């Protein structure tokens, strides 16, 4: 299990290679990854995104989600990397990777972790355009997605 909260950019493909490589002693069969990328606003014009977080609580909240995922599904390993600070369109915001003997478990755990990271980890996104700065509003569907679990 590996959880990293960092401001530095990272390459999710390189992280996926490393994650799979560290399973080599006991290859697991199924690995699922999710990568979140900063996308531009619908009409364009996003200059940058800034993510604020709550140091200490962030790590605790993510560790708790990972613990829930491990209790619920058969997971050999799991990786969560989430950035904070400034990033530009096209940069990687975060990633999740799960490894399991069973593809259904790897998919479900990654999907679960994403839903929880969206609404239960203390991160707040801010979008900066030529017009100014705006906090991204939480979406009702992200909160509703938690009911699936």
């Amino acid at each position: 299990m590996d959880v990293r909260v960092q401001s530095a950019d990272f390459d999710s493909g390189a992280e996926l290679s490393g994650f799979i490589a560290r399973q080599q002693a006991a290859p697991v069969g199924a690995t699922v990854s999710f990568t979140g990328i900063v996308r531009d606003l619908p009409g364009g014009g996003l200059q940058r995104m800034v993510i604020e977080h709550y140091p200490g609580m962030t790590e605790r909240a993510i560790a708790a989600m990972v613990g829930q995922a491990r209790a619920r599904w058969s997971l050999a390993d799991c990786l969560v990397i989430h950035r904070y600070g400034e990033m530009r369109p096209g940069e990687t915001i975060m990633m999740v990777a799960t490894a399991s003997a069973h593809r259904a478990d790897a998919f479900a755990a990654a999907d679960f972790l994403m839903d929880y990271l969206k609404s239960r980890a203390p991160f707040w996104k801010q979008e900066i355009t030529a017009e100014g700065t705006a906090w991204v509003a939480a979406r009702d569907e992200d909160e509703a997605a938690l009911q699936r679990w």
Partner: protein
Amino acid sequence: MIEVLYFAWVRERIGLPRETVQTGAQTVGELVEELRGREERYALAFSDLESLRVAVDQELAGFDAPLKGAREVAFFPPMTGG
């Protein structure tokens, strides 16, 4: 004495990321009432509790959560990670 933290637009409205508060409040709700009474910027930040979330000692909590033994209370909008 309790450490109170503010994040995102709550931090911006109050104008501080954190402060140490001397309080006899027994619950988060009582603490909010005290803060609201201080100044207009607090009243504004706490005007709509439905749009706020609370953590006590870094765990999500409700406004009815007791403060006995708590060292840190944080107020922030719904989270937008991922």
